[in-house]
């Protein structure tokens, strides 16, 4: 049985973050304690004291989730074509894309491909938080759609690790359209009887939550992840009321009935495998 992991992490804070010193030690945002960096890394990037789940990039996520060296990436080189020719504040979207590609090492904010989880074949999509905060533009929508189409045609389960700030405003209505596109392709996959398991990680907000993240057969979240539609800052500014403790965390969503379970990072593999076995026809 999967245990519901409890975290002491209280949710998003509007207070300015304390600076994290570089080097061997880092400050855990959950318990505000200094923890040894390598002890966190050995613990699947989870704080050994308070179970705070650190954000991890797509490569690490695939390493933790899929069986070793089984991930075969599809369309790794699909890059954004900058549909709006977007410029802002003396900088260009194109330059930002290049800079983030260098920083994150992937060409866009999602990686898709076939993989195995504990020997069960799946189609896996993993979002990359280091690339423009995992935001969804044309390429993310397209790659997600291709992944679902692949899962449909090969009758495989589909697992998507969501980690995104929402729709990418640099691509305007094009990125808004991807919400409709990904939902439409999921409708087809659903009709074909496919199993779709979204895994929501910190953060999943905006257009991604309002489309494919919430459309799963069984929705899993990591403990303490920020999950919501409007960002906490937007809400605080709009309604001018202090946000309650733990607002928009995974626990909050579970409480209000929008996700199925909260699973600790170390149990994700076994839980996904178990679900796949249960849903086999």
């Amino acid at each position: 049985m999967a245990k519901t992991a409890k975290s002491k992490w209280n949710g998003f804070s509007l207070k300015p973050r304390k600076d994290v010193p570089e080097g061997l030690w880092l400050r855990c945002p959950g318990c505000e304690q200094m923890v040894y960096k390598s002890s966190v890394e050995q613990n699947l990037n989870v704080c050994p004291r308070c179970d705070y789940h650190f954000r991890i990039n797509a490569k690490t996520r695939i390493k933790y989730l899929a069986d070793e060296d089984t991930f075969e990436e599809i369309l790794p080189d699909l890059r954004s074509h900058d549909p709006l020719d977007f410029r802002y504040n003396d900088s260009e979207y194109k330059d930002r894309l290049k800079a983030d590609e260098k920083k994150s090492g992937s060409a866009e904010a999602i990686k898709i491909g076939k993989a195995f989880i504990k020997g069960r074949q799946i189609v896996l999509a993993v979002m990359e938080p280091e690339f423009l905060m995992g935001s969804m533009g044309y390429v993310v929508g397209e790659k997600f759609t291709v992944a679902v189409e692949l899962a449909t045609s090969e009758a495989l389960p589909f697992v998507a690790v969501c980690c995104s700030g929402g729709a990418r405003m640099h691509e305007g209505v094009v990125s808004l359209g991807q919400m409709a596109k990904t939902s439409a392709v999921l409708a087809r996959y659903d009709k074909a009887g496919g199993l779709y398991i979204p895994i929501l990680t910190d953060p999943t907000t905006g257009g991604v939550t309002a489309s494919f993240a919430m459309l799963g057969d069984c929705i899993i979240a990591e403990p303490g992840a920020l999950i919501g539609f409007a960002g906490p800052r937007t809400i605080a500014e709009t309604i001018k009321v202090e946000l309650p403790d733990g607002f928009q965390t995974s626990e909050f969503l579970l409480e209000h009935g929008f996700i199925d379970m909260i699973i600790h990072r170390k149990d994700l593999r076994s839980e996904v495998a178990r679900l796949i076995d249960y849903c086999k026809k």
Partner: protein
Amino acid sequence: MSNTKNNNTAAGDYLAFEGDVADIDRQINELTKLSSAKGIDYSAEIYALQKEQVAQLKQIYSNLSAWQTVQVARHPKRPLLDDYLNLMVNDFHELHGDRCFGNDRAMVAGLGSIGTEKVMIIGHRKGKSTKEKIACNFGCANPEGYRKAFAKMQFAAKYNIPIVTFIDTPGAHPGIEAEQRGQAQAIAVNLLEMSILPVPIICIVIGEGGSGGALGIGVGDRLAMLEFAYYSVISPEGCAAILWRDGSQAAQAADALKLTSKDLLKLGLIDSVIPEPLGGAHRNIHDTIDNVEKFAVRTLRELKRIGTENLLKMRYEKLRRLGEPIAVKLSRKTAPAKRRIKAAIETMGKKTKSSSAKTST
């Protein structure tokens, strides 16, 4: 006509970039006052002024910047959903409630007919007076609004009634309760279900098309926009606050977001633009609504002729192609021709080979 218009538009209703138009209106007003007080005939002067005003309006509205378009779309006198319901929809009966939590006043649903076509109307209600505006939450719907919209759409689908949605919202409501009741989930479900709903769906952006809140009732067979409406992934102010780190740069952000009907049509993201009368919809509500009605009737007839299976197939293909780069679009169009040419070349090669084989033997 312009006289009645002058009476309608109070001094505060002019947008900042309409200074000259306001001046002319003031002059005309003074002249009419003078002529009635002193009995002098100024009709020739007034006529000349009116002519100049029309020229001015034409000039201003043919070169609106993106930010000016946003201001026109938010004009306080712009026709709202209720004007459409009054002037365009016959026999409208509103249906309430999402059967789950409550009745969201920011979202309207109901049965009526446009021309002779029976339809289900879904739309955002912004409200006219301050009291109404507060009751309708300024057109920002909560999750129960989206769930109501979906429930009524299902009802329409059961009895094969086409759906027309009127989009006019700054965005879905960002609030604590909205999050508690699953704003994101409500919108996501609408996106999924609208993509497979077996009746024609026409979506019309009549004012503001604000992000997910607009898309939540904006997936269908045709997406049209009024000429000076806008449709965007984020409000220009929000975009400026994030990317420019200064909310007052909204004009630049609006420009960069390509949120006008003209730009979106060029990018292939919307299907048609419904023209507005000279000087924007708020200057002539009747003509605006007439244009929308004509569009709706024409499109409804067109879509009703298509069988359900084809309709859904075409809708899916339309959604599947959203945002596709032009190069891919072209290659898809030219692919069959390329294949034909390739095949022709191959057969030619075979023929020559076989003929050469014959000659060698």
